[in-house]
């Protein structure tokens, strides 16, 4: 009998953090524009010391303004999707659940396409204008979260089966609306929807957006983590969980909202990056077991690592062109999923 201790957890997370750090360094080095390790180190040091104004080399500017923000975005998106996927798998008691199964990404995509259609007709200040699409996407996501929640209520609390059914139906319905819009609306802006189909980390945002995303992630993931023990027991069965002291109704509600918001945040800025939320939790379960106190932080780190690697490949495989990151995760993720399936853990 070896119980989980805080030190053990810390150690496991530390290993992953080191791996993430190495992956980030590699991602910073490789790209359409080659950078030497020396120049990279020197410029990173300058950034850390707050001397970013002294970065004069073109490459340094590229690293700081294009590559580094993109990597940070990849980390946040990967971590968000993985934690959301873990949560939904526990909430729905279904190993095939991913963050998009309840329709959040379809709602976000609908918000985005409406923003793209409306955008030429609106007069907006420049800084806000760049945020219109992600903001509308997030609003679409929250509207969907609310709708599916009310659809799935039975006897005043969320019912797992109804939640899954309601979410899947909503996702299909919203996707149909999106297809309808794209085929009938005569706007050149709808070509931007290609961004959403496969997930894409290439969009540039203002600094404040990254802070907001990071804050959102830590808050939502923190809330979910506080229910980690409850989730462990919930997986044993709902009736048993109630007898063991889990407030099933409250936990379901909290986890549903927090995980959906995580998904909404991620999808609003990067489109629907596939497979990360589905597979990373299973891989981490394989390595670290099903205890959510370990699973949630390791899934977050694992997701971040996966997305940064995928995005780096997306940037260098056909450089200077690039692939959408979702294409890379799909190509890598599908075979990996089949492998996990055969090991009968998925």
């Amino acid at each position, binding site marked *: 009998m070896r119980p989980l201790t805080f030190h053990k957890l810390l150690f496991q997370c530390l290993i992953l953090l080191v791996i993430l750090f190495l992956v980030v360094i590699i991602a910073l080095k490789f*790209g*359409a*524009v080659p950078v030497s390790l020396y120049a990279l180190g020197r410029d990173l040091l300058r950034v850390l010391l707050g001397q970013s104004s002294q970065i004069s080399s*073109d*490459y340094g*500017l*590229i690293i*700081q*303004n*294009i*590559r580094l*923000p*993109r990597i940070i975005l990849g980390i946040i998106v990967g971590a968000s999707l993985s934690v959301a996927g873990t949560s939904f798998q526990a909430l729905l008691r279904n190993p095939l659940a991913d963050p998009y199964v309840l329709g959040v990404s379809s709602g976000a995509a609908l918000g985005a396409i*409406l923003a793209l*259609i*409306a955008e*030429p*007709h*609106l007069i*907006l200040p*420049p*800084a806000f*204008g*760049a945020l219109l*699409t992600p903001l509308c996407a997030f609003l679409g996501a929250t509207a969907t979260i609310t709708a599916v929640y009310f659809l799935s209520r039975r006897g005043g609390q969320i019912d797992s089966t109804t939640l899954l059914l309601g979410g899947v139906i909503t996702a299909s319905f919203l996707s149909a609306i999106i297809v309808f*819009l794209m*085929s*009938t*609306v*005569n*706007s*050149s802006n709808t*070509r*931007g929807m*290609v*961004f959403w189909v496969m997930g*894409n980390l*290439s*969009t*540039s*945002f*203002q*600094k404040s957006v990254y802070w907001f995303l990071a804050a959102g992630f830590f808050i939502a993931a923190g809330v979910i983590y506080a229910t980690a023990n409850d989730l462990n027991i919930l997986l044993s069965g709902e009736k048993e969980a109630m007898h063991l002291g889990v407030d099933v109704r409250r936990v379901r509600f909290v986890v549903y909202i927090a995980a959906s918001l995580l998904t909404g945040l991620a999808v609003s800025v990067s489109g629907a990056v596939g497979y990360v939320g589905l597979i990373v939790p299973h891989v981490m379960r394989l390595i670290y077991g099903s205890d959510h106190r370990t699973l949630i932080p390791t899934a977050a780190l694992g997701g971040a690592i996966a997305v940064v690697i995928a995005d780096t490949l997306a*940037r260098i495989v056909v*450089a*200077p*062109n*690039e*692939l*959408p990151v979702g294409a890379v995760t799909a190509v890598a993720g599908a075979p990996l999923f089949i492998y996990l399936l055969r090991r009968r853990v998925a």
Partner: protein
Amino acid sequence: MGDFLKKLLPPRLHPAAFAVLAIFTCAAAPSHAQSATHSATEPPAFREVVDETGRRVRIPQPVRRIVSLAPSLTETIYALGLQDRLVGDTDYCDYPPDAQKKTKVGGGINPSLEVIASLHPDLVLVTKSFNRLETVIFLEELGISSYATDPHTVADIVSSTKTLADVLGVPEAGASVVGGMQRSLDNLQHRLGDLPSKRVLFVVWTQPLISVGTNTFLADALRHAGAVSIVDSSQDWPQVNLEEIARLQPDFLVFADSHFENAQREVERLATLPGWKILNAIRDRRYAVISEAVNRPAPRIVSAIEELARQLHPEAFSERPGDTKGKVDKEDPSSSSMAFTLPALAFSLYSTLHGDHSSTGGCACGH
């Protein structure tokens, strides 16, 4: 599909092939015209040509009823003075404004075959980058012939216009239009002379960053305007990494939009983003805005090329002063309305007030 057909007849051969065929068909035309004056029991006359995708097309003579399935082809028809023979066009055909009054057959990808058939056209005009082979095949099964263009350079556009004029039976109008285009282009060449080309990034879309490939007529149009696209890609609409653009530092960004304000807003918006503001062209607000005509392989593209040349090389047009900031040649602010069908959208109010350009003669997908 179309690609397969392209391989049958390498692009370079097209003009030569047409020239030969045009001579033969012109020689044959008088005899056809004679036979048409006989009684109605005579079988209808046909002419067989090879279109720009290498397909053999049997065209009834004379061509009295035309349906156009691409905005560029509609524009070309008007330029050739054949608008009275145009019985149907697509929802996207908005130039000249008169074209909007024609019977609509739907979009370019999925036009309504029933409507086309009900118009009893003698010939349907299609273009490879905007229409699908399936549509052509369906029409063939209905007994309707389609003629396809496929220009990849500005020179192709010119010769394509001339050949189309010949096929439609108005070679004089064709010569006149083509002559005008060629003169403008030559004039431009003369003005630009030895001036070094400006390195530009043609921005199709920003999120993600999509530009034009090397083998498109758009890229060629840029060349005629004294510019060269810094993006070198065999894809038609490549998604480019912003890092590469930051490394190459283009002299100018080029936007195609009939509304100058839109491009201006876009640039202001980009200037607030960390990844974009390290581009010198953004920082110094060096951008050119030209009409969306540049997206359509039609006679009007020449004026768009001129517009661009004016903005990039103002010194070559010293008798007509212009500034380096974008200046839209207000040819024809389009007032086409968007085909909204969702009543719930409040934005439909805006659309009836302002209107928006649809895209184009080229396929507007990113990948």
